[in-house]
């Protein structure tokens, strides 16, 4: 029994072994099936997904930023252009100890406190993997020093960047605006408008002015280089390339020389001026004094400078032509006169005997004329040339606020003009309905009286006054002011002009318009309120003076509260066009605290007309130019 057991066991063990071999084979088959099932899943079922992922591994898109379009004045002078410069940039995520790195960099190149402040501010607005400029426009020497020390400064890079240069100076800042670094708010907006992809290679975006309103045209289309890259991100070869499409160049109606003449004509005064071509709506000059240096903003402004600009009592960042709202004062009188004629409330020959004041029936209150004792017998033409208040007090009452509002509205008062710049104010053309809505109060007859001379609730921008004046000059066509006259594809080299736009045409009886125009010409003839400023001109012109009261007007007070205590003088206004017979230029001038329209505003218009119509510069400016040439 005991001897037999091993042998029997041997047979049993062998049989069992063969059974186990089969189990082993089955086990192996199972494992093989699992592997092939997995491979089937990856290679057959998910093939497309993985091919896509392999491709996105392999291919990286490197954005190529387009060149921004240039901005030229009407004569082709460059106002905004690009230049390439080296900048010193830091990437927070790679620098390690930031303060140590900054200290180290500071030993190599000079970093001003302003640059450091600006850097800190930009840093706080950026993600830590973004590169933030510390110093731009490096000299060749600085580039060489930094390149030599780069190996021990991780996260510090010298990059060639495109910048914008506004060589026309502060005077053009309110027209051109500026570009600045794309911030979170810009990015959000780009995302919402589906333009984010187009800005993948861009650092800057238009923030204000034309740079903002023509951003889409100026920016161009970002190109992409499709690169094959290895796992470490090194480009192996270029697969394909979609070249960037450069932005369009803009040509303005504006003449920088005229702009300079106008700015110079303001002298020490602040204020705003806009000159339009009454036929096309082209903006020939647009001055808002003071200006500022737009170049400060291109690569991020340092907080101190920004604070001083933003908090300056002179408000250099406010475009007075678009956003300054003032009572139109007497400049509204030609429009009132036309309204009286057109609505049949007055005939040109109707005269009043002006005692120097006006009273409403059943009222002892006297609305005074600016001239004590009055102007005597005044007809419509004289009411304009002498700026007779009494005439318009009475006219306004006879017309009534409702008809006044409806007629003046046709000149665009109280409405945005639609200029190709953003941030325009709409001003205010008062009406019964407006007062009820805004103040929950009825309209009082006394308010109609002062509305007749452009005071009270009236608020207009210089631009609105210019458009209304242009309608008088061109016979009722309500033109839309345009800065840009043509657009050029830099590759095609041909300018494509942008036609002027009209908001509508107001039918005006020619005889009525002629009388008003005559009145406005009288303003500049001997005996008129602004006769002095037209003396000796080789062309005829027509205009109207005005003053915007600074004291006692709520809306006006809010605009410039800080100056009120010092400066109580009124803002001087003047609207004009020339030549009177066939107008080619219209201006609206506002001189802050200039006192009277005839004294300070009209001479500015004269200087603009002189240069535009005859090429003559103001004597003092000519002298400066001669000195500079020597």
């Amino acid at each position, binding site marked *: 029994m005991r001897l037999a057991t091993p042998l029997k066991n041997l047979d049993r063990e062998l049989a069992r072994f063969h059974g186990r071999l089969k189990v082993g084979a089955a086990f192996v088959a199972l494992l093989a099936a699992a592997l092939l099932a997995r491979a089937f899943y990856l290679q057959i079922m998910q*093939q497309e997904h*993985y091919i896509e992922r392999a491709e996105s591994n392999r291919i990286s898109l490197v954005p190529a930023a387009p060149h921004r379009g240039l901005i030229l004045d009407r004569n082709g002078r460059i106002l905004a252009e690009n230049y390439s410069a080296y900048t010193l940039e830091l990437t927070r995520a790679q620098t390690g100890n930031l303060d140590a790195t900054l200290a180290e960099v500071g030993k190599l190149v000079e970093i001003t406190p302003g640059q450091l402040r600006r850097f800190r501010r930009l840093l706080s607005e950026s993600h830590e993997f973004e590169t933030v400029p510390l110093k731009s426009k490096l000299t060749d020497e600085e580039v060489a020093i930094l390149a030599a020390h780069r190996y021990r400064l991780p996260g510090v890079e010298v990059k060639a960047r495109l910048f914008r240069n506004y060589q026309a100076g502060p005077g053009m800042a309110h027209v051109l605006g500026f570009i600045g670094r794309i911030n979170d708010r810009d990015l959000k907006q780009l995302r919402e408008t589906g333009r984010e992809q187009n800005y993948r290679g861009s650092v800057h975006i238009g923030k204000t002015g034309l740079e903002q309103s023509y951003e889409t045209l100026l920016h161009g289309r970002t190109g992409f280089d499709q690169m094959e890259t290895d796992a470490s991100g090194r480009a192996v070869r270029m697969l394909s390339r979609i070249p960037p499409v450069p932005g369009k160049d803009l040509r303005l109606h504006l003449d920088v020389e005229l702009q300079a003449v106008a700015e110079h004509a303001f002298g020490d005064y602040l204020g705003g001026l806009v000159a339009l071509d009454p036929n096309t709506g082209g903006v020939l000059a647009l001055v808002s004094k003071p200006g500022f240096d737009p170049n400060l903003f291109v690569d991020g402004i340092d907080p101190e400078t920004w604070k001083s600009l933003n908090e300056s009592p002179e408000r250099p960042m406010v475009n007075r032509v678009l956003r300054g709202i003032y009572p139109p004062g007497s400049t509204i009188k030609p429009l009132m006169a036309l309204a009286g004629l057109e609505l049949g409330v007055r005939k040109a020959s109707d005269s009043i005997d002006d005692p120097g004041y006006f009273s409403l029936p059943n009222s002892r209150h006297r609305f005074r004329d600016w001239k004590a004792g009055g102007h005597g017998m005044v007809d419509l033409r004289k009411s304009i040339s002498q700026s007779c208040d009494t005439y318009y007090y009475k006219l306004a009452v006879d017309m009534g606020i409702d008809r006044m509002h409806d007629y003046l509205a046709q000149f665009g008062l109280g409405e945005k003009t639609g200029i190709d710049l953003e941030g325009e104010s709409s001003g205010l053309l008062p009406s019964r309905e407006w007062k009820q809505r805004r103040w929950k109060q009825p309209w009082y007859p006394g308010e109609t009286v002062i509305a007749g001379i452009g005071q009270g609730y009236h608020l207009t921008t210089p631009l609105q006054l210019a458009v209304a004046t242009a309608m008088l000059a061109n016979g009722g066509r309500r033109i839309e002011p345009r800065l840009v006259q043509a657009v050029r594809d830099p590759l095609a080299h041909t300018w494509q002009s942008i036609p002027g736009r009209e908001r509508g045409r107001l039918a005006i009886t020619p005889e009525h318009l002629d009388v008003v125009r005559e009145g406005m010409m009288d303003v500049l003839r001997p005996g008129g309120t602004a006769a002095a400023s037209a003396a000796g001109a080789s062309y005829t012109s027509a205009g109207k003076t005005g003053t915007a009261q600074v004291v006692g007007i709520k809306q006006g007070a809010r605009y410039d509260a800080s100056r009120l205590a010092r400066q109580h003088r009124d803002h001087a206004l003047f609207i004009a066009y020339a030549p009177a017979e066939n107008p080619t230029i219209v201006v609206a001038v506002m001189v802050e605290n200039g006192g009277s329209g005839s004294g300070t505003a009209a001479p500015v218009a004269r200087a603009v007309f002189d240069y535009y119509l005859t090429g003559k510069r103001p004597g003092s400016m000519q002298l400066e130019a001669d000195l500079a040439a020597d």
Partner: protein
Amino acid sequence: MPRTSHWILRRLSHLDGILLLLVLLLLGISLAVVASASGQSPARITGHLINMGLALGVMVVIANIPPHLLSKVGPPLYVAGVVLLIGVALFGEIRNGSRRWLNLGFMAFQPSELLKLALPLMLAWYFQRNEGLLRAKHFLAGAILLLVPFLLILRQPDLGTALMIGASGFYLLFFAGLPWKVILGGGVLGGAALPVMWGLMHDYQQRRVLTLLDPSSDPLGAGYHIIQSTIAIGSGGLFGKGWMQGTQTQLDFIPERTTDFVFAVFGEEFGYVGAIFLVGLYLAIVVRGLVIAARAPTLFGRLMAATLSLNLFTYAFVNMGMVSGILPVVGVPLPLMSYGGTALITLLLGMGIVMSVATHRQLNKT
């Protein structure tokens, strides 16, 4: 000269033709894939050829040694291996956080490599000695012989190698006739012990398991390998991108692509068709090994042939499973495919043993 060639022929007659053909096929594929993966680096290709030559030489030598002599190597090799493992635990060098290496002065050596063959040899020798008398106590003794090196390697810690060596020991016990109730009972116990095992695992081991379950949780760290290799395999599609055309391979996206991740290169360049062929080759080797085992005259031969065949396939399975993302990343090369001399020599040494079993038919009673 005729005598020399005669001698060579006799030596070669101890090779198993089918197994040799399969091995050479795999080595040929390996050469092509390593050439592509290394960017046709002459150094890599030459090194690979030298390794292959050495390993094939070792295989021929071993195939010529009769199994009964081979079995005698088992106990001393096993004892030496265990002693070295203890030595590692006491004096070993720490690399990458685990104590696996023994510095022999002229070279660093992993004793756990030795156990890959020493353990099956030892167990097969032991069961051969007790052939026909196998009882529970023999299996118990076998289990202890298995557990000693297993636990020592686990402590290093080297979970992957411990499991592979444990598997080879288990296969041998299984083929020796380990009762099913013990296997199933052990399986249940093992399942219950999993949570405990998890608790005992090192951080990096837990992380490897976790990234296996969700590679995207750590795309730049531990998950990167798996993500890139599955992308490579998946993008290969049915026929692959072609030899030396795999973008994942050629642009360096696959890490360790000549060694542990060589299957990703293969899958990308040769596709599903290639994968079927490769798995088929491994299956053929196993089937041939099992046939040899079935025909082997001694228990030692049967156990060794069956265990080594199954073991080779297990390595292949674990490697391909890890590269294609169904098993955790454990540092196991793909048998006969990955670049690397030690693994290749160990594997062909094993194949040499199988061939020796196949070609030494006569019973050499001891």
